[in-house]
């Protein structure tokens, strides 16, 4: 089954009313008719209406969304799964929410980075227009500040790693808690720096917020030595770090050997580099080069629901390999026509044995009888 948005919680009375009216609409739900008037009214799935698309920098765009009924808010630093239709096909990506959760207008915002050659981010960057309806999945993520916030904060961000931290800063600005914060922010060039004016304005207006901006194309990457120079008391601060895996590796090592690793909090965007966007992690959308998934003939197949691991040499389709490993799998024609055998891909890439085409994104429905794994895969069967 294809991924769907979060299911809004509905008051019991409302639920009962819907069930009653459902006698008139079966097998459809009353929502299927109501959503013709306003897609945001659906109680089947959380949706949002795009109300603003704003070029944030040469390579990032801020999308402002009015969430439908049932949006339960977020904590600064969390991300949301977003479902958009590109060329008729639904794609899901996770993006950090960049807005203050208590925005007066009730809207939320994400700020994806453009990944040339990607599927979703070029669409958001170039083709998305206000009025479009998107699907909203659950809000997730543990990269959040505790309450009350730590007395002394160090924020380190690089590239689109600024996105979860932007939400934190906006929240803290609203509650007037912008004190004793040092922020080291890296961007490749001034044109690519996201939220540059806003961060500088905060630095100018609030004495408690010290911003150190670094343009890495001109001045090179941030090193532990420079951390010492820019923020000598880093050991006494709770650090929140978000950026490319190279930077995270270097800094984690530094905290482990020189500081207290328990005081370092990291948002690691998952390096799903086989996704066509280069990366599918929260907000990263290609910001990082991952370690890569082996591409070759066949691979292991994790049948999540059956709790069985199978292996294909590249010629056996998932269905056959799974059956040989003892799994009981749905099947039908075994030639790709009847869709009885479909299972949802959780991770990995597959090769269509009929065409040789390599494809597959998480959440996609696959016919197991005509697809073989290309590297390790997980499938919900």
């Amino acid at each position, binding site marked *: 089954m294809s991924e769907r948005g979060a299911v809004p919680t509905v008051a019991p009375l409302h639920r009962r009313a819907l069930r009653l009216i459902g006698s*008139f609409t*079966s*097998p459809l739900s009353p929502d299927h008719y109501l959503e013709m008037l306003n897609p945001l009214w659906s109680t089947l799935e959380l949706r949002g209406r795009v109300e603003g698309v704003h070029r944030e920098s040469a390579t990032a765009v801020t999308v402002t969304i009015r969430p439908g009924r049932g949006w339960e808010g977020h904590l600064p630093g969390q991300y949301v799964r977003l479902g958009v239709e590109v*060329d008729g*096909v639904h794609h899901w990506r996770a993006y950090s929410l960049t807005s203050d959760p208590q925005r007066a207008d009730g809207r939320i915002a994400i700020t994806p980075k453009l990944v040339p050659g990607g599927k979703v981010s070029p669409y958001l960057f170039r083709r998305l227009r206000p009025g479009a309806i998107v699907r909203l999945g659950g809000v997730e993520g543990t990269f959040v500040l505790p309450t009350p916030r730590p007395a002394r904060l160090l924020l380190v961000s690089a590239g689109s790693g600024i996105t979860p931290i932007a939400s934190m800063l906006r929240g803290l600005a609203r509650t007037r808690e912008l004190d004793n914060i040092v922020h080291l922010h890296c961007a490749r060039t001034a044109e690519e720096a996201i939220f540059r004016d806003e961060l500088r304005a905060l630095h100018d207006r609030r004495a408690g917020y010290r911003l150190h901006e670094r343009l890495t194309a001109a001045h090179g990457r941030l090193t532990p030595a420079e951390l010492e120079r820019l923020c000598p008391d880093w050991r006494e601060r709770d650090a929140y770090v978000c950026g490319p895996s190279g930077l995270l590796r270097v800094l984690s090592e530094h905290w482990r050997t020189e500081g207290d690793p328990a005081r370092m909090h990291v948002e690691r965007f998952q390096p799903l580099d086989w996704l066509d966007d280069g990366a599918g992690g929260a907000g990263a959308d290609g910001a990082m080069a991952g370690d890569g998934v082996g591409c070759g003939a066949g691979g292991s197949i994790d049948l999540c629901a059956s709790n069985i691991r199978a292996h294909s040499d590249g010629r056996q389709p998932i269905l056959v390999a799974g059956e040989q490993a003892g799994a009981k799998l749905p099947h039908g024609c075994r030639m790709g*026509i009847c*869709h*009885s055998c479909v299972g949802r891909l959780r991770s990995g890439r597959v090769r269509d044995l009929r065409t040789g085409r390599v494809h597959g994104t998480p959440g996609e429905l696959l016919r197991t009888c005509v697809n073989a794994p290309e590297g390790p895969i997980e499938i919900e069967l």
Partner: protein
Amino acid sequence: MSATAQRPPVAPPIEVAPDADPDNRLHPVTDPDNPLRRLTPEQLERLGQELDALHEEVYADLGERDARYIRATIRLHRQLAVGGRALLLGSRRRGLWIAGTAALSVAKILENMEIGHNVMHGQWDWMNDPDINSQSWDWDTASPADAWRHSHNYEHHTFTNIRGKDRDLGYEIMRIDPHQRWHPVYLLQPLYNLLLMGFFEWGVAMHDLNFEAIKSGEKPKAKALAELRAIGLKARRQAVKDYIAFPLLSAAASRDRNAFKATLVANFTSNIVRNVWAHSIIFCGHFPDQTYTFSEREVENETRGGWYVRQLLGSANIDGGPAFHFLSGNLGFQVEHHLFPDIPSSRYAEIAPRVRDICRRYDLPYNSGPFHRQLGAVHRTILRLAFPGGRVRPKQGTYGEAG
């Protein structure tokens, strides 16, 4: 833009022998007139590759316009349903009754055929949409989605027109092919065919249960019971909606007790209209005179190309305009549908010239005819084969320009 919209390339016909397999060694097809016997294994393989390539070409081209089409169709169904139901609030007035019943009938037909049948085939799964999806869709007919997908998508579409394996050949209650042995009960088939027309959705639901498999123990009792319960649930929902809820609403809206009955009759009528229409279109898909049936032995070790040819020989098209095809769920392109059951229905008209061209080049029949002729042939066969005997009807021969 799309390659499928271009004129088909004109290629010379393939050299085919009058009978490439006189000794019956290459194919076990015993019928000497079967066009399958004119093709060598190499030709069959090339044919399979050509059709695979056509499938691939269409799939590579699917995109926004297709997504817009199915959304618009679904929206149209919902608008027609709301409009029809609203008109029937005034069901005591003759004009409103007729308009409402007509709108509701068309809505039910669209929902059943162009939307339900095709979505549940997985034709729109490529969109990765959680709603317009073969695994989550349910339709307003008596057949529970899961059971129908098994008996139709898998059994019928895999074993098309194989006698003894394709249970859709006469739906196990009719003698539709002279190869079937006659039994006195078939004397009644013209009569129960009429009943089946009116209550087709119930016939299909019962057919999905597969009584033979239950009797033989092939289908576990528990599964059969669960399916029966699912049908019961669907029956209850349809009855509540069409025969209680909306009639009550009409009576309340018009403060006229007689409106209950008028709306109930209107809803019943629209269910019957939908059933008769679906029955007529679907029976034209495989039962007109020109289609071939196969014995199990004839399809032993069938290749991909052989499978395609069987689909081609076993299906028949109906000629018609865009409105006709829209209202028949594009099943008037039964040939294209059976070659490519997972290609979105809106694409069948576009690929039909290409399929015809392939038929021409491989000297294969492309069965098509006007609705009245195909339907006439179906009912003639049902009448004739109610009685013992009967011969396989003469075929129209190989591909002709008439197709």
